C-alpha cells in the first residue's frame, strides 16, 4: 500500500541513495579450492586470466536471506523506518529460499517485506540479469518523481554458488560455456532511495538500453544433465560486443550530466572479472582518445562476480578505504546479458561520511 501524492505537489528532481547496506557471507572460497572441486579441471590458470582470487559464499543461508541482511543493514543507517517505506523492489536473479528451489511466487520482495517489517510497502520483483539493481533504481526513480512513492528500497541477494557448483560438476572441457560460472560469488546489497533535498547530489543521469539482437551470449536455466541451474556464457563474444558499444553510451552519459572525464573521481564497473574491467577501460580510452586516469574501482579480485550487487560491494569497499568521499562524482557502468548496457552518473552527498561513521571500529 502506498499513499500516492498529488504529482503536481512534487517537482521533478534527483533521486539519491539515502542509505546503503551490504551483506557479505563469512565463508571464503578461493579459486584454487573451486577449481580443485571440478570433475574435469580446466587447463587454464583461471585465477591469472580473471584476476579473481576468492569470493564469499553463502553456507546455510539462501539468496533471500542475503537480501534480508542487506536490507536490515541499509535500514539501520537510514533516517526512514521500515514501516515508512512505500515500495520494495527486489532485483535478485537467484531466487532461492531453500536448497534447489527457485521461487517464482510469491515475489521475493514479499519475503523481504515480512522480514524487515515494512507493512506499508508495495512490493514487486524486477529481473534484468546483472543490470537488475540499475533497473530497480530506474523504476523507483520514476515512481518517486511521479509522486507514487516518497521513498523505497531496492534490494538484491545473490546466491550464485549453486551455478558454480553445477559448473564444477558438469564442465566437460576447457572451452565449456559454463566456465564463466566459476567466477561467481555471493553477496547482498540494498539501497534506500528518496528525493535528494539538494539537486546537485544524487543520480544525475540514468541510461539503460537493451540490444536484444544479442540475447544469445549469456543465459541461465536448469541443467539438462542433472540437478541445479547452469549459466552458459560466450564470454569473449559478450565482452567484444559490449566493448564495441558501451563507450559511446559512457560518453553520452557524461555529456548528459554536463560532466567531462576530468570531473570523474570514480568509475564503478560491473565486476565481471579484473581482466574484463581492464579491457573495458581500454575500450573507453580508445573511444575517447585519451587514457583514463586510475579511477576504476575493482573488488572482483576478492568478491568475484556477484551479479546484480557487484557495484554496491565495490562502492562499500571504496567508501571504507576512504577513496569515495563526500561530493565525489562517480560513473556506474553495467553490462548484462541481453545485452543490457547501463550507465548512471552519481554525485555523493554525505553518504560516504555517514557510512564510515557507522562502520567506525568495525573494519
Amino acid at each position, binding site marked *: *500500500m*502506498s499513499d*500516492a501524492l498529488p*504529482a503536481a505537489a512534487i517537482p521533478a528532481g534527483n533521486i539519491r541513495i539515502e542509505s546503503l547496506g551490504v551483506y557479505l557471507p563469512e565463508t571464503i572460497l578461493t579459486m584454487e579450492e573451486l577449481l580443485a572441486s571440478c570433475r574435469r579441471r580446466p587447463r587454464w590458470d583461471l585465477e591469472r586470466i580473471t584476476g579473481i582470487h576468492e569470493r564469499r559464499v553463502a553456507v546455510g543461508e539462501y539468496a533471500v536471506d542475503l537480501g534480508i541482511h542487506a536490507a536490515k543493514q541499509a535500514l539501520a543507517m537510514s533516517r526512514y523506518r521500515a514501516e515508512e517505506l512505500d515500495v520494495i523492489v527486489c532485483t535478485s*536473479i*537467484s531466487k532461492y*529460499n531453500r536448497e*534447489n*528451489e*527457485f521461487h*517464482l*511466487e*510469491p*515475489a521475493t520482495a*514479499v*519475503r523481504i*517485506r*515480512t522480514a524487515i517489517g515494512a*507493512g506499508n510497502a*508495495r*512490493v*514487486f*520483483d*524486477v*529481473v*534484468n*540479469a546483472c*543490470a537488475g539493481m540499475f*533497473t530497480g533504481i*530506474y523504476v523507483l526513480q*520514476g*515512481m518517486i*518523481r*511521479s509522486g*507514487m512513492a516518497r521513498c523505497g528500497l531496492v534490494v538484491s541477494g545473490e546466491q550464485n554458488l549453486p551455478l558454480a557448483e553445477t559448473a564444477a560438476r558438469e564442465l566437460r572441457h576447457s572451452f565449456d560455456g559454463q566456465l564463466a560460472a566459476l567466477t561467481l560469488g555471493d553477496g547482498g546489497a540494498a539501497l534506500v532511495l528518496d528525493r535528494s533535498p539538494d539537486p546537485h547530489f544524487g543520480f544525475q543521469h540514468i541510461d*539503460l*538500453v*537493451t*540490444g*536484444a*539482437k544479442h*540475447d544469445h551470449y*549469456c*543465459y*541461465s*536455466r*536448469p*541443467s*539438462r*544433465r*542433472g*540437478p*541445479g*541451474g547452469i*549459466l552458459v556464457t560466450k564470454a569473449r563474444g559478450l565482452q567484444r560486443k559490449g566493448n564495441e*558499444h558501451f563507450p*559511446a553510451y559512457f560518453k553520452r552519459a557524461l555529456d548528459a550530466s554536463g560532466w567531462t572525464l576530468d570531473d570523474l573521481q570514480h568509475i564503478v564497473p560491473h565486476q565481471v572479472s579484473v581482466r574484463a574491467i581492464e579491457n573495458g577501460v581500454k575500450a573507453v580510452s580508445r573511444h575517447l582518445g585519451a587514457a583514463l586516469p586510475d579511477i576504476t574501482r575493482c573488488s572482483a579480485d576478492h568478491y568475484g562476480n556477484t551479479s546484480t550487487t557487484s557495484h554496491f560491494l565495490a562502492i562499500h569497499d571504496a567508501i571504507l578505504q576512504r577513496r569515495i568521499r563526500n561530493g565525489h562524482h562517480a560513473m556506474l557502468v553495467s553490462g*548484462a546479458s*541481453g545485452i*543490457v548496457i547501463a550507465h548512471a552518473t552519481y554525485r555523493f552527498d554525505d553518504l560516504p561520511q555517514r557510512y564510515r561513521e557507522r562502520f567506525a571500529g568495525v573494519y
Partner: protein
Amino acid sequence: MRHCRIESLGISLPRRHFPRWGSIRHAVEAGRQCLKASQHRKEAVGLVVNAGVHRDRHICEPAMAVFIQHRLGINIEFQKRSTLAFDLLNGGCGMLDAAQVVSSLLQGGEIAAGLVVASETNPDRHPDPRFAYPASGAALLLDLSPWRGSGFGAFSFHTRDDYADLYTSLVSLAEKRGRIVMQRQAELEDIYLSMAGAVVEDVLTRDGLRRQEIDFVVPAQISAGFLARLPAASGFPGNKIVNLAERLPDTLSTSLFLAWKLALAGRRPLPGQKALLLACGSGVTVAAATYRF
C-alpha cells in the same frame, strides 16, 4: 495532468491444439496484435516489460522481455532509438504493477510509449497436476492520453504477507530440466474476497469516485465460485462484473486483460465511462485500478 491510457491491446488466447506454444510465442503473438492495432510505430516503444511468471525452459537470465523485444523487432540493435526490456514479477497482479511503472515513466517524460506483456506456460514434460493455467498471452501498449482525464486513474495494492504461504510456485532444481511445483491452499479465494472490499474502497476514494459511477468491473477470472461471490465482497451488483468463467479459465498474469478484451469485443465504451480492474495474486496481493474511457 495527462493520464496513461491503453492505446491498444492484444491477446493470445489458450490454444488447445497448439500445445507447443510456449510463453515467448504467446507473448509475441499478443504483442504483434497490439502493435498492429496501435497508431505508434514499434520504434517508438521505449520500454518492454514482461509480467509473466512461468516461462519457457524455466529461463531466469536474460529477462524474458529481451527475447520478446527481439522477436517483435523493437529497436534490437544499439542505435539512436533505444528500448529497455526487463521482467517484473508479482504473480497475478504483475500486469497492473507494470502498468503503473510504465505510467510513472510516461508521466516523467522518460518514454513516449511502453509495451507491457505477460504470458504463461508450463514447459515440464510431466507437469504438476496442481498447475492449472493454460498457456496464453496478453499485451498492452500504453501512452499518455491526448484527452484530459481519460486513462488510468488511481492504483491500489494491498498485500497480506501473513498469508504468503497460501500460494507458492517454484521451480524445483532437484531434477534435471527443473519442474514447477505449485501449492495453492483452498482458503486462498476466501482471502482474496476478504481483501477485495477494502481495495475497491481505497482505489475509489483515491479517485474521488463512488461505486455507482463505475460502469463495469473487470476482475481476474479466478474461478466461477470466486466470481459468483465477488458481488457481495466488492459491493458491486453482479451485472456490472465481467464474468467469463464459462469461456475463460484462470490464466494467472494474463487473466485480467484477456477478460477485458473479450468483454469489450465488438463494442467501444462511450467517452466518460469508467471501469475498475481487480487483480489477485500471490503475496497475498489484491490490486485495483480505475480506468476512464
